[in-house]
């Protein structure tokens, strides 16, 4: 029950309908280049293809997927490809905001601890000598109109009310947004990839070095 509720987080399911006569062998032959990639192993048995990937190359068009099963059902005048695949990358992106929220809490806790630490006052006293320092300005800069330097202010850390968790919150939000984008985008990319392959619309190889001058 729990698995059914959470599977959508890192599973990509879908179907591609082919409206032309095609056997399962023909369908998998067309999809074959997608699985002949470094780090990919697969098995074909009649109407089913199972595959798994380990450290797929960044250029692998299915690099987001770790494993999956494809089934091709032949029907009158065509067929249907059904697939179910898992993606650890989607799961990690889903969980990433939690990690950054934890970092934010850690930052707040350390900030409070630093403020209550007795050594802070001692440090502030030591830094006070900075205020006595008078920076000079080169005559060239003065002539060219660069603003005159100011006396150093109190140490920045002393001015701060504590460490800021803002960046951790920003990244938590960014990863949440990226998860939503990836969950929708990658499912569409995979479906489009399968459709184009089955309908024979593309033959592009994933990587072809273009520079080889010696």
């Amino acid at each position, binding site marked *: 029950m729990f698995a059914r509720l959470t599977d959508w987080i890192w599973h990509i399911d879908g179907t591609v309908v082919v409206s032309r006569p095609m056997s399962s062998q023909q369908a998998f032959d067309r999809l074959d280049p997608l699985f002949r990639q470094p780090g990919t192993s697969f098995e074909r048995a009649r109407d089913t293809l199972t595959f798994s990937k380990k450290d797929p190359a*960044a*250029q692998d068009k299915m690099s987001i997927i770790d494993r999956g099963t494809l089934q091709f059902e032949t029907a009158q005048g065509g067929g249907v490809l059904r697939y179910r695949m898992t993606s650890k990358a989607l799961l990690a992106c889903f969980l990433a905001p939690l990690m950054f929220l934890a970092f934010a809490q850690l930052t707040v806790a350390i900030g409070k601890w630093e403020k209550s630490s007795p050594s802070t006052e001692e440090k502030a006293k030591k830094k006070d000598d900075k205020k006595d320092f008078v*920076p000079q300005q*080169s005559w060239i800069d003065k002539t060219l109109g660069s603003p005159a330097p100011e006396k150093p202010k109190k140490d920045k850390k002393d001015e701060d009310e504590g460490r800021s968790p803002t*960046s*951790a919150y920003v990244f938590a939000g960014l990863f949440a947004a*990226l998860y939503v984008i990836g969950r929708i985008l990658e499912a569409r990319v995979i479906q489009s990839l399968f459709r184009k392959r089955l309908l024979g619309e593309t033959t592009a190889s994933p990587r072809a070095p273009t520079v080889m001058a010696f």
Partner: protein
Amino acid sequence: MDGVRVGKRIVGTQSPVTIGWENIPKVEGGPVKRAFFTWFQPVVLFSLLAFWYWAPNSIAKASTAVGIGIAFRLLLLSLEWVNPRHESWKLTWKEFVTDLFYVSLGYTFLGLIEGYIGSDAIIGAIQSHFDLSKLAWFTALPLLLQAFLIAFIFDFGQYWMHRGMHNWYPLWLPHSVHHYITQLNINKGAVGNPVELFLIGLGIGGFFDFLPRAAMMAGAIGMAIGSYQHINTRFNSPRWWRYLFNTTEHHSLHHSQDYESTRSNYSNTFIFIDRFFGTCLDGEAELLGMEGGRRMSIREQMTYPFTEGWKALRERFARPATAVPAE
């Protein structure tokens, strides 16, 4: 592969590389596009220098630098889409998320640690025992010279740290992870084991907090030159630029699958440091990475230096097998 001789070295025997600027492709397209990708880099550099030189004190502060840095990254990301260098380096969702994970570590967790055991802590400790008036002469130098000296001293240190990483196994272990990237994109510079990110992040910027404007200008120099190390955009960098500064071309060779090519172009910003020490290689590569281009997962990137280090220690200190005499 036969490779090509460059000085005493033969490069490109393990993976294709392009050597010599005359062999590197140019930006294709109309005159406006070509002009844009020829002058973009110098215009950005000089504009930033002018901004930091004349900006009022109320604007010339760290928060402005952070804002400019983020805006510049977004601009460079858009340029990757407009004029990619290689189709095979195209940024995918997975690559973008992975890169951003490392960037975010730098802004959060590593930033937190830096304050205690990194350069911030070390510099703070030194400064508390240091008389700033001894550095008054430095503040009397022209601003541009101050900025250049800060940037140069930092890059000189980075050069030797980086070269050390490629020549001493304990330092190579954390750095090796960064060499498993198989393409260059704008945030790829952040990809690596946290130990390496910590080592490479050891800077001297904190020393110059009494010279905020010069420090900002030095940061702008680093950003407006060093950012192009990892980017999938083709530029027609002017000849003087690529003679003085590190470029994507230089850094792609450093990341090549060809071992000999990786032992070059160590500097972050000023490639003339490499030229001076004989480690500069002018050219580019498309096939990048280690072990034939195997992509390393984040989990392995986190553990690799430790597991490999443990293996190396065990091998080194393993007891020799004692032979049992036959009866």
